């Protein structure tokens, strides 16, 4: 007899309980034995996935990169439609004279937390070879940038004139422009990363319910009034098969910064989730 399929997720916000409780009920309605455990940060979740203590992990892109390094056979089983083709941007004040990344030489660039793919690791790739001072806003370290606070603080520092540029996700530049964190029309985007992928449902071992679990996710219908509120909370309109090709830039960034070594050991300086 096998137990329920056990999934890990990181509790970056209280709503995570609402989301996965809802999914648990929804899977139960479909006769799939599903349970979840919550982690306070991604590193332990990855370690538990690789050790076989959980059967699937709702992983950040950075957690996926580490999973892959620790367990090369790991698969990305599913992802949200909203996890595909994100970009991050390098933003300056509109009235500055800075035109491109090279102009930031010896300037101060604000980023999100040390472990944020979209707020730090990926956009800093735009500044490769440029001698800049990085000012990190360490909010929610260990949450791999799921907490928006670091990017927001970076944006505030830019608006306040404390830094010369700030890094953020494209959607957060839109959000901050709308909510006034960045005054309308007062910022300019000087560089944008190529598209990258975000979270995925990572699996390592085998579980008899895994195939059905993924099939149910992919069949989840936004037209279903029971599923839709969960999808709205989790921020997707449909689940897609996992795609492993969208993490190359992050792999490169992890290698460049030495965030993890080739076997997935945490080697980042001063990173304490």
């Amino acid at each position, binding site marked *: 007899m096998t137990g329920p399929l056990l999934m890990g997720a990181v509790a970056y916000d209280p709503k995570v309980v609402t989301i996965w409780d809802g999914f648990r009920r929804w899977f139960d309605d479909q006769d799939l034995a599903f349970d979840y455990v919550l982690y306070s940060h991604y590193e332990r979740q990855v370690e538990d996935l690789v050790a076989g203590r959980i059967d699937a992990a709702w992983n950040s892109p950075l957690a996926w990169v580490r999973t892959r390094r620790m367990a090369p056979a790991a698969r990305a089983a599913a992802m949200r*439609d*909203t996890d*595909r*083709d*994100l*970009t991050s*941007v390098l933003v300056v004040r509109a009235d500055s004279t800075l035109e491109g990344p090279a102009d930031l030489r010896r300037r101060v660039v604000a980023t999100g937390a040390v472990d944020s793919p979209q707020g730090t690791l990926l956009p800093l790739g735009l500044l490769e070879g440029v001698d800049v001072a990085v000012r990190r806003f360490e909010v929610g370290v260990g949450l791999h940038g799921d907490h928006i606070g670091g990017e927001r603080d970076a944006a505030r520092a830019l608006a306040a004139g404390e830094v010369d540029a700030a890094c953020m*996700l*494209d*959607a957060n*530049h*839109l959000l901050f*422009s*709308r909510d006034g964190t960045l005054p*309308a029309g007062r910022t*300019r*985007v000087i560089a*944008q990363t190529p598209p990258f992928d975000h979270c995925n449902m990572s699996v390592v071992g085998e579980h008899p319910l895994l195939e059905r679990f993924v099939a149910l996710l992919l069949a989840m*219908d*936004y*037209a279903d*009034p*029971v599923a*839709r*509120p969960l999808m709205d909370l989790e*921020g997707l*309109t*449909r689940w897609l098969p996992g795609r492993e090709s969208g993490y190359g830039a992050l792999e490169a960034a992890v290698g460049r910064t030495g965030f993890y070594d080739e076997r997935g050991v945490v080697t980042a300086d001063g990173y304490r989730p």
Partner: protein
Amino acid sequence: MATGPEAARAATGPEVDLGPLGIDGGGHLLIAHALARLPVGSPLTVLGGGPHLPVHLRAWARERGHRVEGNVVIGGDADHRRLAGARRAGATGDVAERAPAAWGLAARGAIVEPGAPPLVGADLDRREEVWTELAPKLYAQAAAGQWDPATAVDWTPPELADEVEVAVVQVMTYLIENEQAALAVPARFIGRIHPHYREVVQFLTTQLADEARHVEVFTRRGRLGGRPFGVSGAGGRASLLTLLDEPEWPTASFLLSVLGEGTFLSLLSFLERHAPDPVTARIAHLALQDEARHVAFAMAHLSEHLRSDPALRYRLAAAVRRRHDALLDTAGLSDHVHDALAILAAGEWSHEAIGRGWTLVGSLQEEMNEARGRRLVRLGFSEHEANELSALHTRNFM
């Protein structure tokens, strides 16, 4: 022959020009508007949109399930799916036979996106129980007929004989507790009426506001002469409490508004005609106008309910008998009130006036009984049954 730009447009497919509007400044409204007019999966070229468009377009589209290639948006089906199972909460201009709990607080005629928890507690959800075609009109009249106690009445204290002023205060003491009952009874049902039957809820809230004003003006008149309030008789209070105990809407409405407030129409009209002072006459007049609407509404919704469910008549009759039995051991209208009405109508402390007042109160009670009987006949009771039920109505009037 096609001109240049038109030919180009035909070749590139539909476009939307945001002009200077960025997506952070409302430009997405134009895109969504254009996409809604295209089949799912159609490409839409986005022009203009300010310097942030390349960044914001993909961010905006991604969250809504659209795809983006350069400045072309390929519309997804999330918006359609969101409303896939949606139905309208009835027709805007017509009320439904039954209002499902799933409609919740939605406006009548709104498209109800499924997925919210159902409305709990609105068990009066059938048209026949609550609705009347007169509800919209009566609500409009009620809204237009709201008056301000501060300005609608000249509150100059009258100068009356002590005995007459004491009688007026006793009548006010009695009226206030009756008005409080008239406020409490519909208040208990308003939250149980499904909001689909909007005008009924609206009407009843004006009824509550009316009763609140009645409590106020009778209180102000009671205190106008500087005298303490009179007696609240045990029998009268017991009678009113049976109204609050009535658990069902049709019977509660029948006992309160057809029989009770119906009887009060005679009482208020009596007070207006025979008041010893202009303040009492004026407030009785204002309250009478409001009460006439309350009675009209109850008569209307009960008539329609009886048409669709004739057996309701037995429940209504049984409620009158039950209440009568419950009150058998109580005094009904206290002597304090009865005597005070006679002195109030007398208007002065003399043998002749007191005799006249006494006679007037006697005919008032006859008139009340006749008017109750007429209303019962209008609801479809036989003459015989109407007389019987009218006689069983509480001697406390309300």
